[in-house]
């Protein structure tokens, strides 16, 4: 998963450890306390101002931690062409901060003259797949590096879809040379919302393509006697998702794992506690593997 800049400089790789989404509320704590945490992830769109304190804080934090750029504004699944200006801004941030990983979503947010900013659902057709692959190609070409794509959390399905989400997801990566950012919470949310079989979903994923894992909390709503799970990144990771995560890393091996917490943002210690939770599960799996090698 290592990529080299045109300049020949290597970005600092994101280690196979647990990391956290970086929030402005936590800049001071991170800078002053230097917590023992593997890496931070940012949304590049929050750093696309012309200047100002956010870029300065990031500069400072980047000196001490590897970072990952998790974009939300490219709109890879849009029927409209990618925005050159946005790609250039993204490239400038990649050049300046030398992230270990860059990722985007299997989704769209630009359907008209305006932007939804929330991630909208795709129809899983061959037409849509080809467009997704073209757009991933363009981003990778522009950034001169591989990106990872993330599976969405979804609430509805289109009749016109021709293939299951996991087939579309893996195919998009294979055809474009992208890697996979597997959001384990999203797998759980989408599978339960649609009655899909989680094991079927995971069985489609090739180990070799996994570059990163996301974990987050979701909320549960009762709608006419049925349960819909809403991915709002606003609470601790729930026990079912922790269990699924442990099964996932036991089966597929370890990958850099991020705790995302984007609404109802907690005090920094609570976020750190979630990160430690992920780290302990990773350490547990690593130990088992070592034991297996020794005894096996």
């Amino acid at each position: 998963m290592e990529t080299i800049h045109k300049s020949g400089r290597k970005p600092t790789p994101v280690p196979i450890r647990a990391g956290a989404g970086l929030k402005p509320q936590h800049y001071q704590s991170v800078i002053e306390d230097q917590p023992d945490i593997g890496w931070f992830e940012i949304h590049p769109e929050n750093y696309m101002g012309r200047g100002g304190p956010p870029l300065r804080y990031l500069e400072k934090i980047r000196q001490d931690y590897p970072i990952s750029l998790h974009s939300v504004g490219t709109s890879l699944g849009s029927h409209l062409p990618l925005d050159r200006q946005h790609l250039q801004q993204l490239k400038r941030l990649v050049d300046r901060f030398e992230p270990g990983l860059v990722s985007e979503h299997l989704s769209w947010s630009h359907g008209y003259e305006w932007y939804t900013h929330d991630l909208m659902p795709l129809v899983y057709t061959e037409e849509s797949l080809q467009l997704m692959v073209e757009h991933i190609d363009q981003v990778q070409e522009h950034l001169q590096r591989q990106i990872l794509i993330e599976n969405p959390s979804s609430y509805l399905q289109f009749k016109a879809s021709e293939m299951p989400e996991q087939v579309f997801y893996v195919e998009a990566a294979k055809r474009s040379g992208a890697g996979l950012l597997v959001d384990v919470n999203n797998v759980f949310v989408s599978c339960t919302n649609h009655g899909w079989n989680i094991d079927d979903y995971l069985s489609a994923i090739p180990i070799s393509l996994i570059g990163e894992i996301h974990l987050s909390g979701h909320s549960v709503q009762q709608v006419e006697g049925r349960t819909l799970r809403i991915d709002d990144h606003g609470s601790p990771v729930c026990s079912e998702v922790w269990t699924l995560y442990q099964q996932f890393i036991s089966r597929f091996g370890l990958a850099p794992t991020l705790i995302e917490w984007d609404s109802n943002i907690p005090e920094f210690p609570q976020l750190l506690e979630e990160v430690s939770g992920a780290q302990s599960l990773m350490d547990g799996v690593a130990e088992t593997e070592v034991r297996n090698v020794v005894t096996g």
Partner: protein
Amino acid sequence: MSLLAELQKSFCDALRTAEAPDGALLAMLQDDDLALQRFQVYRNNFIVLNGDALADMFPVVKRLVGEEAFRVLATAYVRQHPPRDRTLLLYGDLFADFLQAIPELSELPYLSDVARLEFAWTAAYHAADAHPLQPDQLQDLSEEAFAGLQLRLHPSLQLLASDFPIHRIWSVNQSDDTDELISLDEGACRLIVVRPDNEVQVRVVPQGEFEFVKRLLASATIGEAFEATSQTDPQFDLGQFFSRHLFDGTFCAM
């Protein structure tokens, strides 16, 4: 039109309206008797996410009208002016005008100017950085040459004039703990918003200083700006203004 284009356009239309989505869109969704509710999750997320961005941008407006009324206003704004930018950093540039046009808010005549101040604050926060003007850059200039200079103001600098004491309203409402009352009789104020370094400053300034900076912003030379300002405000003390602000980051390197 391709299936994808058609689907994304009708999805966007349906996200934006308060009405029930049209039948054609619902007919495209797999139906398990929950198709409408499933769609509503996206519509709700769209409204809440962009409304949250407005709440972050306008905390004082939110405090002045109350949480509930703010949500109603934010929802109406998101529908009328959905984001036109790939980032939400400066979403809400038309919110002040939007508030001003709402008849029910006429009892809070200062509200839209408070919104202008909050937007100016965030615009200054994310504005380009610049090196402050240094004394050595003005060394050995004759008086005449100095008067002929066009100074560059910091890219974050903005001017804001209001008929209401919006600076007091804005400062007092920075915290939720206050119940201090402000009389509108305190009257008009003129503000300069600027971020010379890391901190955004909101300065209450006298008329002369405001007019002088306004003319500099419009590319007047120091001499021209001073002459015009002296006519409207003979009290304006250029020496005192420069001793405080010439090298404090209000102006940037030439």
